[in-house]
């Protein structure tokens, strides 16, 4: 029985995991990062368009600040997010961009003088200030009132991940590649590490740690078509769920990205539309202004995806052998722009579609893209119910995104959460509360349990095929738990998934291969994926309203009166075939921004009984502090600085936006 010890075990080597590891290492602790793949291959690399941070350097970003970013994020979430967390995030995002800049990310820069851009299908001339020359620039993204998305061409995630990957080498952070956590070791409400399997040799061993952090990304691959990398199977969330103690939050909140290519499901960045690209239908007609006169193609992703689906349902889709699609037209941007700022998109179109996007329209369709839900944590990143367990990034629900995430807020979240959660883990480890006296017998019991499970798959009497069951799950999710949902379909989905979970216990592995054994890997991941899928489907069935990306055709209204709440799922009994759900209400009276109309999408919601009272209070505070600066007013409405690590409480410097232009 091999046991390795570390202060902090981090499961996942993408942006969130690496930044967390660097943070705890700098605090003098001994982290170890486990990664399914070489860390630089993580799905973070596929983030294309950029990272939101309110630097306000470029002309179209002038006047931006934390307040504007905060309001955009809360509206984007359809008031489902935790507003304190949103405040922590928007405050720290500029620091994250600047830190990454110092570490080497070659962010695109402001060039003083005039340049052309496409805005609302028209060529406009934008004049950049001289004094902003050489500072980090930004592009437009959906659901934002300023150009706020910092980028490196359309390879932002790549540049960030390689910078953090190399930074972690520089700082001596150990990253173990090709290793997978099978189960968390826990006892009496305390997490102690994980049982792991070497994906090359098949060896099973354990890591024992005072703090464990899950940063394993999302669960896109429970869907048949997803923009996610194929390792994004939600198994990190399942590790937490299978403790029976940790909670998952808002698992039904699943984002569909408007523009993945058909049929491969590969993403083309929101930067395409941010930079001026248009959506067209079978007649070549630009249809988004018909539905969303204000934001058009740049409403939030949930809204654009629904409008596209609605338009195809009206018979305006382009028929193809792979079903209907619509067109993304970036020819309007011109070849020079595409070859400089959208080069991954150009490569993808060339290699997977055989087209040149400077000449041809791109066939696109809304496709599963992002998991707003995840392991429910406090603003510190610690699990609400399992002490010693932390989570950050897409795997977590601390809850920045509520029911819809804005483009550019996820890569930003990964590093911001890594910065904050790394500090809180270090604080945790410096306190006596992290002391551990875990007996090796407990570790042995967990190892034995996992080993027995794998042996049953390898040599048991099971006859079910993992390929068939998995494909049935993927199909069920895309057909019945997709963009438009109904009670009847969700009922059917839950039934099918329960049945699949039962059948997954009878899976038999055909190939007795020594070592890696990819079939065995699929087989032991399947029940984990099914449990995650059941949390999504059941959460969606129970939530009889529409909010953000969760849309019920039988309950199209956003119902703040009954559903301004967070869905929390646990799996207390491992033998059960359903999770246990409860709904945790959000407190309107402590919100800085009481619920209202988002400014795009349908204007249709039922108010929470406290909304009016809180609105009055907020208005009174603003009135009373009329001449105070924005920080003082914010502090009155919803203090959040106490939640931040001290080192990240400083104000963010900006070019003073009130000064008039120098020449």
């Amino acid at each position: 029985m091999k046991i390795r010890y570390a202060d902090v075990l981090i499961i996942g080597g993408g942006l969130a995991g690496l930044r967390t590891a660097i943070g705890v290492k700098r605090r003098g602790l001994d982290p170890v990062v486990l990664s399914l793949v070489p860390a630089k291959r993580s799905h973070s690399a596929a983030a294309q368009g950029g990272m939101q941070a309110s630097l306000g350097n470029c002309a179209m970003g002038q006047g931006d600040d934390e307040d504007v970013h905060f309001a955009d994020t809360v509206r984007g979430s359809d008031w489902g997010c935790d507003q304190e967390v949103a405040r922590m995030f928007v405050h720290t995002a500029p620091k994250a961009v600047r830190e990454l800049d110092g570490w080497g990310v070659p962010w695109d820069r402001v060039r003083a003088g005039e340049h052309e851009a496409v805005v609302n299908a028209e060529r406009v001339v934008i004049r950049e200030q001289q004094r902003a020359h050489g500072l980090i620039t930004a592009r437009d993204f959906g659901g934002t009132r300023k150009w706020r998305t910092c980028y490196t061409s359309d390879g932002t995630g790549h540049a960030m991940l390689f910078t953090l990957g190399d930074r972690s080498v520089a700082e001596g952070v150990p990253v173990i590649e090709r290793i997978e956590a099978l189960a968390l070791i826990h006892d009496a409400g305390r997490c102690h590490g994980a049982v792991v399997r070497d994906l090359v040799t098949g060896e099973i061993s354990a890591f024992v740690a005072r703090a464990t952090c899950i940063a394993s990304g999302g669960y896109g691959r429970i869907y048949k078509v997803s923009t996610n990398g194929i390792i994004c199977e939600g198994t990190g969330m399942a590790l937490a769920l299978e403790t029976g103690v940790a909670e998952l939050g808002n698992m039904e909140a699943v984002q569909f990205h408007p523009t993945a290519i058909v049929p491969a499901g590969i993403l083309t960045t929101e930067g395409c539309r941010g930079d001026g690209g248009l959506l067209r239908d079978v007649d070549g007609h630009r249809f988004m202004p018909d539905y969303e006169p204000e934001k058009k193609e740049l409403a939030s992703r949930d809204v654009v995806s629904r409008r596209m689906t609605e338009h195809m349902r009206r018979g305006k889709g382009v028929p193809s052998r792979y079903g209907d699609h619509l067109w993304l037209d970036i020819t309007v941007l011109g070849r020079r722009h595409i070859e400089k700022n959208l080069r991954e998109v150009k490569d993808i179109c060339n290699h997977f579609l055989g087209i040149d996007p400077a000449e041809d329209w791109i066939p696109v369709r809304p496709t599963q893209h992002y998991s707003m839900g995840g392991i429910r944590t406090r603003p510190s990143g610690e699990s609400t119910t399992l002490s010693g367990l932390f989570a950050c990034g897409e795997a977590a629900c601390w809850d920045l995104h509520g029911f819809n995430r804005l483009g550019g807020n996820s890569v930003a979240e990964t590093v911001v959460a890594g910065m904050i959660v790394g500090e809180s883990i270090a604080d945790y480890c410096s306190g006596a509360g992290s002391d551990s006296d875990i007996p090796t017998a407990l570790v042995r019991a967990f190892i034995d349990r996992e080993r027995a499970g794998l042996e049953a798959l390898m040599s048991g009497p099971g006859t079910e095929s993992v390929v068939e069951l998995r494909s049935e799950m993927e199909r069920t999710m895309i057909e019945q738990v997709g963009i438009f949902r109904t009670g009847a379909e969700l009922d059917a989905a839950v039934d099918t998934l329960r049945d699949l979970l039962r059948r997954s216990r009878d899976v038999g592995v055909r190939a007795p291969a020594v070592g890696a054994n990819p079939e065995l890997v699929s087989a032991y991941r399947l029940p984990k994926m099914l449990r995650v899928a059941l949390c999504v489907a059941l959460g969606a069935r129970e939530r009889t309203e529409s909010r953000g990306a969760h849309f019920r055709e039988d309950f199209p209204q956003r119902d703040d009166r009954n559903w301004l709440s967070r869905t929390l799922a646990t799996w207390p009994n491992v033998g059960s075939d359903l999770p246990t759900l409860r709904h945790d209400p959000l407190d309107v009276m402590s919100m800085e921004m009481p619920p209202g109309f988002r400014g795009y999408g349908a204007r249709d919601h039922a108010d929470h009984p406290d909304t009016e009272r809180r609105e009055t209070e907020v208005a009174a505070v603003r009135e009373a502090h009329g001449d105070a600066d924005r920080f003082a007013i914010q502090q009155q409405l919803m203090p959040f600085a106490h939640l931040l690590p001290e080192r990240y409480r400083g104000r963010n410097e900006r070019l003073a936006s009130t000064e008039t232009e120098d020449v």
Partner: protein
Amino acid sequence: MSDARTLTFRILRHNPQDPASTPDLAEYQLDEAPGMTLFIALTEIRERFEPSLQFDFVCRAGICGSCGMLINGRPGLACRTLTTKLDSVITLAPLPVFKLIGDLSVDTGRWAREMAEQLETWVHRVDEPDVDRLEQRMEPERAEAVYELDRCIECGCCIAACGTARMREEFVGAAGINKLARFRLDPRDERSDADFYDLVGTDDGIFGCMSLLGCHDVCPKELPLQSQLAFIRRKMVRAV
């Protein structure tokens, strides 16, 4: 579709974890489907015929660099290779030079980490960035030039196509030299050419390159490896 081709895949198989395994070419046949990539084909082969077949994909979009392999003898990214661009007999083998994990899977991760350690591929500066203050300015053209070289995905194709790498186990290869050129160009990195010379001024560094330039021909990201190799060689000759 009655006129669909039948594709024959000849795949070099070997599992070093299994003492009984010996390297062997295995054959599988599939009906070609529209838009079929090697990712789709290999997944289908694994699901239908050979559940133990090992290969590496992550993004399946040509971004992450996981799936470098020899495709009809030439290093390339399998995920973005359409079968329509290949003959109906397709031979796949793992990238040479790297440690074999099994079948088409090789350990490029260890190589990449060793390269980072050896060449110290990070910005060297005395002061940590002050995250509350305005960032350091950079000329837009310079930032773009750095990004141009930053696009390397460390897929290992250039190493697999390199004559020197076959002879010198420690050779840093085009990926390494390109990376060094990237940091040399970065105004935030305070290292001098003398510092860079200490890292690559050897036969395992820039002076080992025989200028065969297989690297340049196969780079999936079309990085300007030829000019970077020549440029760094000239700079390093002058650095001492």
